[in-house]
């Protein structure tokens, strides 16, 4: 039995989608759902504003442990998932740059692979200890989430 590939990392390097997809593709994999988040230079919704750059920081060892937990949760909910990659880029990131990636592979596309990727990014934004400070033309501000993890979550 080939172990199922699970990649999770906090990195300052560019996110290489080709490389990550290759690493989570088994010979039985026929479908991959990949989510990436990018830095928006202009935001229209809610409080419209411009962004010069975002500066990300992470509690690295805990963040990697929580990414592994997200991957474990995905596998519990969708047992057809073959490979999982979860990558958060940190540092100073400019508009149009991919900052985060969640990718899941499965044999077929109708197995929940899209839902699994969606769950992964939602969950990352709840429990993985990463923060971003937004630098706009008028100043800088830490972005705060609104999710309070339960103890042990």
């Amino acid at each position: 039995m080939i172990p199922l590939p699970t990649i999770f990392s906090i990195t300052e390097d560019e996110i290489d989608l080709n490389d990550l997809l290759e690493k989570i593709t088994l010979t039985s994999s026929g479908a991959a759902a990949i989510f990436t988040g990018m830095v928006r230079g202009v935001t229209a919704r809610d409080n419209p504003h411009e962004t010069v750059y975002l500066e990300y920081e992470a509690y690295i060892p805990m963040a990697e442990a929580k990414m592994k937990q997200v991957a474990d949760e995905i596998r519990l909910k969708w047992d057809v998932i073959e490979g999982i990659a979860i990558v958060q880029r940190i540092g100073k990131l400019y508009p149009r740059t991919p900052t985060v990636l969640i990718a899941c592979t499965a044999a077929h596309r109708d197995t929940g692979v899209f839902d699994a990727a969606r769950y992964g990014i939602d969950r990352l934004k709840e429990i993985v200890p990463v923060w971003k400070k937004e630098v706009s033309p008028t100043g800088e501000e830490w972005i705060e989430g609104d999710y309070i993890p339960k103890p042990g979550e």
Partner: protein
Amino acid sequence: MNKIKLLFFATIRDRAGTKQMDLEIPDNLTIQELKDKLSSDYPKMAQSMKSVLMTINREYAFDEQIVPQNAEIGMFPPVSGG
């Protein structure tokens, strides 16, 4: 006494003015008691204590939990990665 390591992130780090701090605390202090102690010892941090997330050895902790010996305690606002 219990020697712990505190790690601060994002807004909490800005208010604390440092990334980390080694601290000696009484044995069997709870997380809530630790927060109260930090608020009184470091008044600048007091306003952070309401919405702060606390972790013990890289797991989310609750207020009644006892701080274990030599714990690594993380303190930060709700996460905003992605």
